[in-house]
């Protein structure tokens, strides 16, 4: 188990740290928000990320990727979490890129992976159908017509669905609405006839979409993986995304922690820094302990992916649950310790709090993953 970074990984982390601080600071997020940017992220910054190799980090060199692997991607995501950098990294690279890598045909890989690595295409996974993550509850139907299909149904919380060029849609080809088998993945063009995309602006100022499919015609070669066998791919892809999101949350948590400690030393009341009060010292020291645990869990989860260990599902749930809980606690405490100023938009703590909640709800919240952990452990 590699819980310690190699020199190459440390170098990548330093590059990422510098990049996000200089090119995608929190001021960028505020600007996108205040100008009501239609994309919700900066395409120029995304292009730079691709040029640095971040978009191709999971892609082999054969398709123009840098192949730094999951630990490398985790380091980049952690640093992006420190500045709340909005980008299609999760939707396009972690989720859709991984799905194509895992299940794609030779042609699909050739067409899509190199485009993702180059930052030329944005993709989104149309999976969820309700307010709670439930990856096997699929009512959207794909009806066979010869070798082709027609898709009808509606999806919600499709991350980056409003800017996606292509969608990966999870639709039911057999079985009842909650069956694990009978789900098929399709790659379809976002502009295909019958696809209606409605942007949903989330509390973290990032975007998702509600998407309806009205008898959308799909060619046979649009199937990703096998017919009825989409669930296994979805599970693997989701675990990659969950671990990636945990890495991003780790960065956000660490940033809020660091700035909170600074605030405790600077802010004076009763003539002394508030950080001299034991009531606050004990709470922040306890958070320090919690974050050390979070870091161990995230590093182990990333190395589990890298080594293709068979406990990836278990450790993914451990990471997603723990980091979601700690992100909530850290942002709540960070706000409380800043007093009234924490309630103002001028301070960044509110932005971190909002992002923490959306990241927590994405691909299963802490409750979902505690339940899954227990089930995987056989109780």
């Amino acid at each position, binding site marked *: *188990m590699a819980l310690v970074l190699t020199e190459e990984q440390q170098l990548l982390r330093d590059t990422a740290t510098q990049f996000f601080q200089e090119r995608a600071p929190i001021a960028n997020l505020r600007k996108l928000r205040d100008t009501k940017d239609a994309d919700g992220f900066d395409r120029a910054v995304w292009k730079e990320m691709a040029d640095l190799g971040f978009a191709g980090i999971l892609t082999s060199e054969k398709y123009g990727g840098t192949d730094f692997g999951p630990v490398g991607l985790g380091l980049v995501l952690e640093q992006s979490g420190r500045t709340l950098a909005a980008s299609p990294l999760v939707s396009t690279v972690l989720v859709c890129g991984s799905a194509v890598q895992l299940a794609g045909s030779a042609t699909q890989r050739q067409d899509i992976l190199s485009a993702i690595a180059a930052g030329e295409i944005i993709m989104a996974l149309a999976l969820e159908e309700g307010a709670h993550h439930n990856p096997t509850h699929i009512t959207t139907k794909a009806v066979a017509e010869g070798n082709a299909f027609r898709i009808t149904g509606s999806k919600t919380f499709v991350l980056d669905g409003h800017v996606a060029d292509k969608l990966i849609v999870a639709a039911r080809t057999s079985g009842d609405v909650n069956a694990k088998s009978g789900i098929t993945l399709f790659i379809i063009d976002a502009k295909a006839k019958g696809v209606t995309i409605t942007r949903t602006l989330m509390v973290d100022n990032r975007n998702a979409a509600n998407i309806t499919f009205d008898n959308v015609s799909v060619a046979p070669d649009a199937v990703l993986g096998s017919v009825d066998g989409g669930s296994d791919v979805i599970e693997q892809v989701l675990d990659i995304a969950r671990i990636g999101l945990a890495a991003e949350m780790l960065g956000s948590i660490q940033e809020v922690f660091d700035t909170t400690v600074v605030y405790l030393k600077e802010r004076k009341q009763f003539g002394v820094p508030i950080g001299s009060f034991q009531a606050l010292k004990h709470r922040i*020291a306890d958070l320090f*302990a919690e974050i050390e*645990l979070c870091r*161990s869990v995230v590093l182990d989860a990333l190395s589990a992916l890298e080594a293709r260990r068979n406990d990836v599902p278990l450790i993914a749930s451990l990471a997603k649950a723990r980091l979601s809980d700690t992100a909530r606690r850290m942002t709540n405490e960070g706000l409380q310790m800043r007093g009234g100023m924490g309630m103002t938009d001028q301070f960044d703590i509110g932005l971190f709090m909002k992002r923490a909640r959306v990241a927590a709800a994405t691909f299963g919240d802490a409750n979902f993953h505690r339940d899954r*952990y*227990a089930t995987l452990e056989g*109780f």
Partner: protein
Amino acid sequence: MEQLEKFRQDTREWLEANCPPTMRTPMASEDDTVWGGRKATYKNPEAKLWLDRMASRGWTVPTWPKAYGGGGLTKDENQILQSELRRIKARSPLSSFGIWMLGPALLEYASEEQKQKFLPPIVRGEIRWCQGYSEPGAGSDLAGLQTKAEDKGDHYLVNGQKIWTSYADKADWIFCLVRTDSTKKHDGISFLLFDMDSPGVEARPISMISGASPFCETFFTDVKVPKSHLVGELNKGWTIAKRLLQHERDMISGMGLGSGVGSSASLESLAKDYFGESNGKVASAALREHIVQQKMDGKAFALTLQRTTEEAKAGQGMGAASSIFKYYGTELNKRRYELMLEIMGTQGLGWTGEGFTDQEIGVTRSWLRSKGNSIEGGTSEVQLNVVAKRVLNLPD
């Protein structure tokens, strides 16, 4: 590499030939632990044999220098020895505060003469030590201690009282913090060693909530201590005391936690036994939620211990993470016992006699004992203060 392989081979052969069969079985109860000392009794003679054989090679303390009776092993060799011991499930030959706490401090601070005199009997398990730190008026504020040692020319005269002295009634010698200058606080403390058989020493066991009496009140009335038994400089004992506390915390957060009854039991199997199951799940959804949280906390903590070990091996030093071990480990252990008690219901609330299994009674006693984990060796509150001050640099 070749040399290490040879070392492994030789070690394996020696252990095969010298570790008695009963020493390769798990300990059945607390009194199987070998503490050594002048008053030691061995209910199993093989335990004494195992101790003597290991001590003859210095392997009760594999990494101490050979000059003081230790094994003189390198880190790599010691790792091999430990893995070979685990391979045959060998019991620890000797448990000892001399090994865990005093020895490392003596190696660092004592004179050559003191090392020669005190270390070899620790290695051989001949002298059992106890620790004279806390006093009725000096708990978390340890440096406020008042036990006095007066300079009487050729000796010190010790008067005062210690408390929470672990196994003082069974120990042969004590390492003791005493006040040698009452005008200063930290800089008026010295580190003394003396025989518990000295006239004027009295140890009285304290009955604890668990029903056991591992701790004592220890009284000193005009105890004469030769001046040669002062370790380090006069009034510089606090430096030694602090270093020793680090060893104590490591001990409590590491091996100390794994020793209670039921500490390795599976919570979910226990819950299925006591509550039943439906569709493979623990029948109570609320209890299942508590169990999974406990398991996830435990896993995250284990990964953190592992990460710190790996960082140290990679030469990145003991990271800041190690400062949380005592705090987090002990709180986690307390939560675990609370949960076990909840799982067992009224079967976990028996005190003695009929109607309860040994395991049930054992868990109940260990639950009570676990409450002390976050008090002894620096309370959780003191640990948090240490993190706030030393790691986060928050102002006083």
